[in-house]
């Protein structure tokens, strides 16, 4: 049934920052676990039985099977409840929903991942998918964060700062709040780590626009500035992918909350998205 959720057990809970936890889950039913196929950029609906449901993006990669991961920021009633859960606890999961990033179409190209804050979560799925598959020419990760303490997947980001070049993965980090840890990082990896905002990371970089795709995820205010940087470099609006957030209750295009657009262009973010191109945004009012 469409709205029935499947039981999944929490295998591990990892505190990423003071607000975000990473949950590693596996379906209790091995058959469902085997059948659970998803694409980077898709999301699931988490069901805490008797308390409610909420949508959350998958931040693990489908190239690593047997489990999946969700990065949850404690921000509202449901996520606060989620944060109280421990290893061994059961939640309900339905999905995956949404269109996801067109990973196959982008094979052989350079990917520019632009993440702001929590936007790192869905892009981490793309990042690891691209690294695991090895089918992409070069991967840039531009990550804007508030402070050192807020860097999501900090171990992984620092590891890629150190060794990413060997895998054709070029990581750059911008932070806003100065701290000894940030200055230490900056000293080690200047100019790839700097104080500023995520658009500052574009400085000095040039791309082959015929063979590049940009993938953006971050807070609503970030899109406009990042897109300007990309358009200034003449990247086609069809090559700019963004993943968007809306209130979602059903995840399958019924409940109506995520409807965007006007009389000529109604779209459901959950069903037609959450990944849209900048061209979609140009032709659909209210998308970004």
């Amino acid at each position, binding site marked *: *049934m*469409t709205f029935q959720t499947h039981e999944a057990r929490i295998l591990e809970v990892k505190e990423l920052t003071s607000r975000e936890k990473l949950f590693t889950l596996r379906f209790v039913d091995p058959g469902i676990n085997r059948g659970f196929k998803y694409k980077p950029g898709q999301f699931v609906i988490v069901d805490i*039985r008797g308390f409610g449901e909420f949508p959350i993006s998958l931040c693990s990669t489908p190239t690593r099977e047997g489990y999946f991961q969700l990065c949850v920021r404690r921000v509202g009633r449901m996520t606060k409840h989620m944060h109280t859960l421990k290893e061994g606890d059961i939640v309900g999961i339905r999905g995956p929903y949404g269109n996801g990033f067109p990973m196959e179409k982008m094979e052989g190209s350079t990917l520019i991942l632009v993440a702001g804050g929590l936007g790192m979560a869905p892009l981490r799925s793309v990042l690891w998918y691209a690294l695991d598959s090895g089918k992409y020419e070069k991967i840039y990760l531009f990550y804007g964060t508030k402070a050192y303490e807020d860097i999501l997947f900090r171990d992984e980001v620092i590891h890629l700062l150190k060794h990413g070049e060997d895998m054709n993965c070029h990581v750059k980090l911008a932070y806003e709040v100065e701290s000894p840890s940030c200055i230490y990082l900056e000293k080690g990896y200047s100019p790839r780590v700097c104080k500023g905002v995520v658009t500052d990371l574009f400085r000095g970089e040039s791309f082959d626009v015929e063979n590049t795709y940009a993938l953006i995820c971050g807070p609503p205010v970030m899109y406009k500035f990042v897109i300007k940087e990309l358009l200034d470099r003449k990247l086609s609006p069809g090559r700019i992918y963004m993943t968007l957030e809306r209130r979602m209750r059903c995840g*399958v295009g019924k*409940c109506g909350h995520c409807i*965007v657009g*006007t*009389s*000529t262009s*109604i779209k459901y973010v959950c069903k037609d998205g959450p990944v849209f191109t900048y061209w979609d945004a140009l032709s659909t009012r209210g998308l970004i």
Partner: protein
Amino acid sequence: MRYVKLPQENFEEFFNSLKRWGKLYAPVKKGDIYSFQNVETLSEITLDYTRTMLPPKKFFVRPKDEMLKLKEGHWEEANGTEPIVLFGVHSCDIHGLEILDKVYLSDPVDPYYKKRRENSIIIGISCMPDEYCFCKSLGTDFAMHGFDLFLHELPDGWLVRVGSVKGHEIAWGSEELFENVTEEDFHHFREFEEKRTNSFKRSLNKEGLADILDLAFDSPVWKKYERICLGCGNCNMVCPTCRCYEVCDLWINAYEAVRVRRYDSCFMETHGLVAGGHNFRPTRLDRFRHRYYCKNYFDPESGFNCVGCGRCDEFCPAKIEHVKVLDEVREGLQ
């Protein structure tokens, strides 16, 4: 289409025979308003009603609807539906149900809606427009499908269009009540339809409407209505095609909970609100315009999302008129 005639003297018997097929609901007058209610006898119902306050969607997407029941940590599907007969549905509402079908029966199918639709019999009835109706201009004034039987008023009975096998079985089951349609009945049917067509007082100019509305995004007309609109969401509740719903879990006792969905309204501030406090439609202007955009979205396959039933006008406490708003937006652009 298959046509039969139901003479007036057999009408009551036919009406009573419908109870064999399910719980019978028909328009009943309550004070100044009409509503679909469970009825036992013909005397309870009003055949020449204008519009019910809540459209027939209330039987398929209920105002408050149990989806799942939590028992010992597992969700069980809430109990099923009973067969119903909806008697006296107007063609605009039949079109409204077809628009809901497009949403709820598209992949993935909404199981609750589907079960209820399959368990329902729709019997349409002809009507005369009042000052609010503008279905003719949207092409929803005549239903070609989406019903099992459709009754058209004749001076001495009803011309019945049979729209489905189920409808045929119903008529067949009371075969003795029906007659063949005569040349005179056809004449009366045509007369009625002509009279009806000429009785519409309101019409919507839909020429290029979808593009005009999109271009008029910043029209001062929206801002004018932002101040008039109370943001109550009445128009959403009574609209036959509004379908937004909110989901919540409710505890019945310490061990059992239910997952309930209920009507939601895009005029509520929470409609575009996400966790963390960002609101994608923060002002009433955004929300007012959003409803008009949603209703007037033109789907090449099925047309507009509005059926011209006039409910949002009749039940708006601020007396906002749908057609007038759209005409003003159109004029503002010129």
